[in-house]
């Protein structure tokens, strides 16, 4: 089967009409920095992913979910004697050892209820309440990054749909492997003509064609024809995302979605269970992302984000219920890593939030603002009023990235 790219090169007419960006704009992007937001949908248990195994209350509190301080299938990968990584996070451990991973613990957004859907909405809209607007903080970030030349779109959603974090005024691209034989360019031309008076459909189609051409340029004819399944989707999308971000004239900001975190049952320990599975998928996806990025890894920051954490104690069925604070990963060549930053709240009964959850001591927005300020050179007032409205009192964390 011919990929779209081959068909494009055979077809002069559409390009001549200016419809298809056979040659993408080569002008400089406004920045060389790459930023990937990995949204962990379903609420990641931070005490499981980044066990505070040096805390004297850890083992008793976590009970059957406590990882061992001894090496082994259920043993933590030590970070700094206080905190460790879950044993499935071998790639992240390697980043840490190379100074490319920083962990922030006891983090939460301003949201204090326990609905997944409201929590995710607020996490992505960047305000202090759910459903407060229909644009995402990353879309507003892109809007502040300055003009781009030609058809370059700085934002990229990995998957068929665009998550709220990337929705808004600025047009973004999305990419997913095509599983159906690609429609011919001449036909796309006919569709585009039919959409002449339909700005929304017309714009969406132009974005799609542009992202598709970019994908072919980045990945060759191998792009596509891979059915996405829960166990491989993140890895496939992450690798493609890395390759697209690596392009000189490619996107700079991408969102990757990671699933499987809502571990109400069968959470497991180190080797087995739903948490091991979700962490393994994340670990593999991040390895694929780094490999796809190639040399651009040195200019990259990957940040994880989840709507909230989970109960500090196991629930009645080998899992955890919805909680509050959690852990956050910052990875990439641009990160000043090999550190765990935590204003640690403690795990004694009275130290838990509402006597049940890890208490939040760091605002998610402080981390995000710190990254955006240092990595994308966004000014303070824009961060406090546009990207995260009404966040003036939330000070950006300093020195997260390499100088």
């Amino acid at each position, binding site marked *: 089967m011919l990929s779209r790219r081959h068909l494009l090169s055979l077809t002069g007419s559409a390009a001549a009409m200016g419809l298809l960006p056979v040659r993408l704009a080569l002008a400089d992007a406004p920045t060389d920095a790459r930023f990937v937001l990995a949204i962990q949908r379903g609420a990641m248990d931070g005490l499981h992913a980044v066990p505070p195994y040096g805390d004297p209350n850890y083992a008793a509190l976590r009970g059957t979910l406590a990882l061992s301080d001894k090496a082994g299938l259920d043993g933590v990968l030590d970070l700094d004697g206080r905190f460790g990584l879950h044993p499935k996070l071998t790639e992240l451990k390697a980043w840490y050892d190379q100074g490319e991973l920083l962990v922030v613990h006891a983090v939460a957004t301003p949201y204090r209820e326990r609905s997944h859907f409201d929590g995710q909405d607020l996490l992505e809209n960047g305000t202090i309440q759910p459903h407060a607007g229909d644009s995402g903080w990353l879309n507003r970030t892109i809007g502040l990054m300055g003009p781009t030349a030609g058809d370059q779109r700085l934002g990229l959603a990995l998957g068929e749909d665009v998550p709220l974090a990337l929705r808004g005024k600025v047009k973004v691209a999305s990419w997913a492997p*095509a599983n159906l034989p690609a429609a011919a360019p001449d036909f796309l031309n006919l569709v585009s003509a039919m959409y002449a008076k339909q700005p929304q459909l017309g714009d969406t189609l132009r974005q799609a064609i542009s*992202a598709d051409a970019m994908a072919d340029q980045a990945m060759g004819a191998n792009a596509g024809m891979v059915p996405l399944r829960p166990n491989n989707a993140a890895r496939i999308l992450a690798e493609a995302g890395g390759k697209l971000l690596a392009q000189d004239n490619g996107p700079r900001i991408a969102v990757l979605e990671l699933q499987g975190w809502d571990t109400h049952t069968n959470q497991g320990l180190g080797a087995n269970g739903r948490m091991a599975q979700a962490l393994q998928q994340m670990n593999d996806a991040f390895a694929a992302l780094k490999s796809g990025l190639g040399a651009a890894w040195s200019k990259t920051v990957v940040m994880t984000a989840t709507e909230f954490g989970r109960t500090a104690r196991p629930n009645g069925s080998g899992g955890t219920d919805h909680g509050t604070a959690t852990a956050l990963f910052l990875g990439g060549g641009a990160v000043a890593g090999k550190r765990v930053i935590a204003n640690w709240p403690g795990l004694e009964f009275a130290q838990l939030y509402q006597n049940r959850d890890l208490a939040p001591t760091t605002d998610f927005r402080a981390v995000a603002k710190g990254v955006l300020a240092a990595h994308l050179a966004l000014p303070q007032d824009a961060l406090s009023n546009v990207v995260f409205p009404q966040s003036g009192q939330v000070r950006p964390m300093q020195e997260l990235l390499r100088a």
Partner: protein
Amino acid sequence: MIPAAVIAANRFGLGARPGELAAIGSDPRGWLKAQISSANAIPASIAAQPGTEARLAELPPATMGADGQPQKDLIQAVLKLARDRYPVDAAAALDAAMTSQTSFVERLVAFWSNHFTVSALRPAVAGLIGPFQAEAIRPHLFGRFVDLLKAATLHPAMLLYLDNAVSFGPDSRAGQRRDKGLNENLARELMELHTLGVNGGYTQNDVRELAKILTGWTIHRPGQPERAIAAERGGAVFIPFIHEPGQKTLLGKTYGDAGQNEAEEVLEDLARHPSTARFIATKLARHFIADDPPSSAVATLAETFTKTDGDLAAVTTRLIDLDEAWGGDGKYRAPYDWVVAIFRAFGAGDNSGGDQKGHSAVQVLDHLGQRPFFAPSPAGWPDDAASWLAPESLLARIDYAQAVGKARAETDPMKIVDGTVGPAISAESRFSVEHAPSRPEAIALLLVSPEFLRR
């Protein structure tokens, strides 16, 4: 103005089949209301499938391993059930949707199944979703909401999906003996997603109390000692020694220590709560009118819901009579709507498609990002254009449309136009179809025209 017959067939129904617009004729509201009062026979493709109890009866006896987890043979049997039954059930559901003469009913099955989502993303549930829809959803479409709520909440598929099957009263005999306790999952989603809505006025403490009330409801497995079972309900059972004893207080009301009756009583109260009326009314209006539905329509539906004590026939009738539902430019079709409408447009089942048509629709939907029965979360599939109209997904639809065009090269494109969107087609779309260089391209253009992409 979109003609009313076109709206009846596409916005309320699942897309016009050949001749359907003519059959609807000048009485679109009557055509829809007739579907409410008809007997609603279960479609043959679905009636042919075994029910929940028969499926559960084939599982090995309920035994627990030393670690308190179900033993391997049970897990393997459940996964085998999923592997064997999912493809058949999903294809049967699609087959029913594309061939139905009462597609408003089929849309409501999809709507309520999405409201009470059970997703095959949990493999243990995948083999029970077909029966869930047949047993918990279909019989109650035009009954009382409380009966629908009870049937859905206490169905084995839901008890498994939202983990109530493994929730133990911490002070129950089983909880004490095995050191097991509550799981909040079903309690929270039951209030947030199925009844009150997230701002419906409940607290974290209410979630805990409701979780206690629901303990004891689990699935019936062969080998469970009969004397342990106090009540049975279509493959679900109530087991007193798992149930949390004592009084519970939910939303300010105290419920006595009443075993299996506690859940029933609470579900009746939740069904009657004003927040529930408003929440259900909003979802219906969003599905049938607009992503941002007019508040007048929501208020009217909520009022009918409350006044009739959740009589869904009355609520559905009121929905049909809402003027707002017959205006505007409607909704962007989700992939399910769009693919089913395509199959219906070509009269699937009359002289084409054969036994494989359900399976091929399932496959296409997988490629288009809406794999049947695989909703991404308990909140179900999204119901707004912002979630479905994205660059990559539009391109995937265009790819599929071109493939359909090639496969239907013998069909007269204008006949499909007249049979589906009819006079609602815009001048630009009509021009594009009429002047397409070939028949396959003309058909494909119609399928991705703005009018066919909406309902």
